[in-house]
């Protein structure tokens, strides 16, 4: 028998001898208690920050469009005010 065979034979014997090892019967329940049961329930309040984060790009786009619109229309308001002697005018929207 070579050294190689000897090592393989010993590994095989120890593999067989340890093949029936299993965790204790309550192990699965223990794991579930440490994971699923410990995790907080998903609530509306808990989900709110996540939903807010997802809406952030849309909100940023709306804000940018709003600023652009305001900047564009500011000139029209100034023109209308300039023609009025008492700085009061009726604006048409």
């Amino acid at each position, binding site marked *: 028998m070579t050294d190689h065979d*000897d090592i393989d034979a010993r590994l095989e014997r120890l593999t067989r001898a340890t093949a029936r090892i299993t965790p*204790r019967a309550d192990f699965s329940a223990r794991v579930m208690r*440490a994971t*699923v049961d410990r995790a907080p329930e998903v609530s509306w309040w808990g989900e709110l920050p996540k939903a807010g984060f997802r809406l952030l790009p849309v909100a940023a786009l709306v804000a940018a469009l709003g600023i652009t619109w305001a900047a564009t229309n500011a000139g029209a308001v100034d023109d209308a005010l300039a023609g009025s002697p008492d700085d009061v005018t009726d604006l048409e929207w």
Partner: protein
Amino acid sequence: MSNLEQAAQRLAEGDRSAFQVIVDATSAKLVRLSARMLGNVADAEDVVQEAYVKAYRALTEGGFDGRSRVETWLYRIVVNGTIDAKRKLKRTATDELVEAGWDGAASAESIVALRELAGWLGELPEEQQTVLMLRAVEGLSSAEIAQILECSEGAVEQRLVRARTMLREKRRDT
């Protein structure tokens, strides 16, 4: 898609009961692997439980990228956890005799074999020991081991050759 992959997807979608499927399908295998590396079952259960806590968090919070199979990924977490535990645990021979919940002739034989296996392969450097355990004892392929250890298949083969060489040399020395 395998049962485990389906369960992982269901869990990611909020079905917590799917985690039970994952635990039931993998716990025996993972505890056995960790016990074979550590030499006792009680510590292996702690390591695997901690691995499941990490896995649950990753699966529910989107931390699992799905690049590898769920089982391979779990093996990786357990192997890393076991290596960490081995470094932390400086057990005495007396401590190792304590095995709560184990009795009967078959269990006693298993405990002796566990200690022999961990002690024998424990003579090897960590990376060689892990590779030999995964190949010769767990029966995984080089490709699977490479995925678990995040190295190349060539590195796995090289470590295997070195591990066997070192065991032969140690045997000759004794």
